[in-house]
């Protein structure tokens, strides 16, 4: 947890020497608490105080880096149990698994499929970030060769999974400089794997049979100086995994250091749809990495959509690009609906227009991502912003008429819009749910 200014002040020299650039030690402490200045600005702080402050300032969940250079991915540093309290910061990484026991043709096909797991959804590119290479054979040479091939074909950083520390070392060396995540499945070999991870400058994921055993293990590994740790509570199945992930997050946020690491979860259900449900649930409920066997596009799309939704910043309204959209085969006589660029508002309108099956234009006015009433109240949705968007959209070249449909909630704007734009205003329904019926039955050009 973050320290208060007074807690920080206790550890400072209290000499008010001003060498840090602040008038007093207390002022410096306050700035530090606000994260506006770092401790290294104080030249006189004792090593003991420095150690105490740094360990207290460590975030409750360790930040871990996987991959290198342009492919660097970060997990951890989460601070909340519920997204509405602030937000979830670092979207869960998805890893699709391949096994070094697969036949060469099946293997190539699977790697090619993983390479293509990128999607375009609501204007954003989303996809699978990692390839999980499973040393199912137990053979070091096969593992090493697949590690190279997997990273090369998929173009993604790897999670190297083995029960043997020696095999991890061999595969990690083959990927030197690429910073794969090493995953040691045998707890007995975890310390040996930690030495490998340190030597190869890689993060390490460890597994144990219980949270208690896991806490013990991470403490031992941290004592060797390796802090880039990811934890697998060992539980499998929806229930056990959900409970373990929640316990880990809650304990970490209570500043229990031995579980203060990002967690890795595995989908294991018997049917693909259940694995989709599993993966989505772990994304929503605190997993930093989900390793899955899923590979079909219909299977991964809902998981990726879950991630997009859950990791949206709840404080920040989500906006669509303010512009002219079309639904269906529009023509010169198609209706023109005006709305805001708050994504929920826009997609509600778009959904209803689609449902009506009346081809239409939707003009999304830039209201800084706020809804109709909020934008109206803050004067971002008014006669002049609507007129400006209308003129800039090019709609006047696309339709023969000059009639626009205004949301019923802002009927009060109609006279102003008519005066400024020269368009005739028709008052649409107050709720998006009425649009479909309005277009089908009431709207007339």
């Amino acid at each position, binding site marked *: 947890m973050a320290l208060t200014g007074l807690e920080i002040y206790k550890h400072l020299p209290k000499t008010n020497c001003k060498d840090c650039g602040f008038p007093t030690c207390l002022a410096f402490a306050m700035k530090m608490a606000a994260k506006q200045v770092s401790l290294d600005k104080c030249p006189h702080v004792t090593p003991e105080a420095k150690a105490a402050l740094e360990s207290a300032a460590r975030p409750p969940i360790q930040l871990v880096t996987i991959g290198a250079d342009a492919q660097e991915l970060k997990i951890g540093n989460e601070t909340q149990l*519920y*997204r*509405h309290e602030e937000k979830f910061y670092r979207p869960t990484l998805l890893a699709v698994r391949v096994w070094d026991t697969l036949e060469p043709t099946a293997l190539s096909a699977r790697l090619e499929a993983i390479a293509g797991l990128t*999607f*375009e*959804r609501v204007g954003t590119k989303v996809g699978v970030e990692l390839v999980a290479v499973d040393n199912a054979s137990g053979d070091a040479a096969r593992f090493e060769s697949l590690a190279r091939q997997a990273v090369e074909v998929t173009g993604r950083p790897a999670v190297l999974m083995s029960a043997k520390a020696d095999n991890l070392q061999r595969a990690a060396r083959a990927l030197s400089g690429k910073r794969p995540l090493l995953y040691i499945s045998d707890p007995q070999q975890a310390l040996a794997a930690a030495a490998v991870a340190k030597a190869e400058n890689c993060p390490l994921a460890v597994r144990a049979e219980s*949270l*208690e055993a896991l*806490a*013990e293990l991470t*403490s031992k590994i941290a004592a060797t100086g390796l802090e880039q740790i990811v934890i697998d509570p060992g539980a499998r*199945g*929806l*229930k056990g995994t*959900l*409970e373990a992930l*929640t*316990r880990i997050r*809650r*304990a970490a946020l*209570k500043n*229990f250091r*031995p*579980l203060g690491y990002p967690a890795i979860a595995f989908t294991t259900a018997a*049917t693909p*749809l*259940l694995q*989709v*449900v*599993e993966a*989505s*649930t772990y994304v*929503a*409920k605190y997993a930093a990495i989900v390793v899955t066997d899923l590979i*079909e*596009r*219909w*299977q991964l*799309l*809902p*998981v990726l*959509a*879950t991630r*997009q*939704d*859950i990791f*949206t910043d*709840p404080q920040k309204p989500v906006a669509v690009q303010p512009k002219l959209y079309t639904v269906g085969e529009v023509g010169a006589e198609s209706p023109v609906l005006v709305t805001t660029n708050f*994504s*929920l508002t826009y*997609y*509600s309108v778009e*959904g209803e227009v*689609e*449902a009506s*099956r009346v081809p239409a234009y939707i003009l999304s006015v830039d209201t800084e991502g706020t809804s109709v009433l909020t934008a109206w109240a803050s004067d971002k949705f008014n006669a002049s912003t609507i007129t400006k968007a209308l003129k800039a959209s090019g709609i006047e070249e696309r339709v023969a008429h000059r009639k626009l449909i205004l949301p019923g909630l802002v009927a009060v704007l109609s006279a102003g819009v008519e005066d400024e734009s020269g368009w005739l205003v028709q008052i649409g329904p107050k709720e998006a*749910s009425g649009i479909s*019926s309005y277009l*089908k*039955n009431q709207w007339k050009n």
Partner: protein
Amino acid sequence: MSIPEVKEKWSARVSEVTIGATPAQGGTRARTVTIGGAGGIPFLSFDGALPHPPAIAIDVLDKQPVGWPKPLEEVYGDVWADPVQWARRAKELGADLINLRLTGIHPDEGDWPPSKAVEIVKAVLEAVDLPLIVWGCDFPEKDQRVMPKVAEAAQGERCLLGAVSQTEYRTLTAAAQAYGHTLIAASPCDINIAKQVNILVTDMGFPLSDIVIYPSTAALGYGMEYIYSILERGRLAALSGDKLMAQPVILDVGFEAWRVKEARADEEMADAWGPLAYRGPAWEAVTATDLLQGGADLLIMRHPEAIRAVREAVGQLMQGDGK
């Protein structure tokens, strides 16, 4: 190494609502469905018991739907012209309740008289012995004429009637109260309005214990997170003792999931997103299971594959819980 106790100290539980009435209780249902009662964050046995698994109601329309995508047409196309046949199909598919939508009474959709709605409700009640949810058409003037008649015709069956809102609540509340039904209280993704509706309805003398909250619903990928957070906030409030947020929650999952592009676009998106036959049910299933993690007690659903997946997931999540 011992790890810290992480169970939260909750001071209250979600209330329970029972829908339907058996002959012994003055109705004709074969059994009742009780929802709610959660004493902790969903599906965490260490946090608090969940006495009842989330229930699933299957959608039945009073007349043939327009624009339902192919995966749904394959399941219901042969029965959807007849609500009675459709309700029987819903029961075969394992519904806990029937969710009947009166769409044909809407002035734009047929403008059927109250008598026709009553006839359909009675026929469905007669044909299928599951507890019944009935929604009006969301056109207040018409619902005010129809729903009291429906409530009267179903007297004693303890249906769940929807929906009252901040602006339209008097007629339906009075009807539910007069004929012994439970009520859906709707609010547009807003906790304060949800509370306000509960206050308005209970001010009329309707018991808080017979209310189910409908906080509105959004599909996966289309604002689902707003509902997710409303559910989480509502549940945290309920567990912390806020009596006006302690009611169980109903979500309209099928309706929302099946109208988004991911559950409708067919051939044109098959290469990019995979076949609709799998993608559609997956969209509905994941919308449901994601929102269940937020905290929901009754789901309205459509596709049997999605329903099966939700049932299986709930079965696993409830291990060690329930009765």
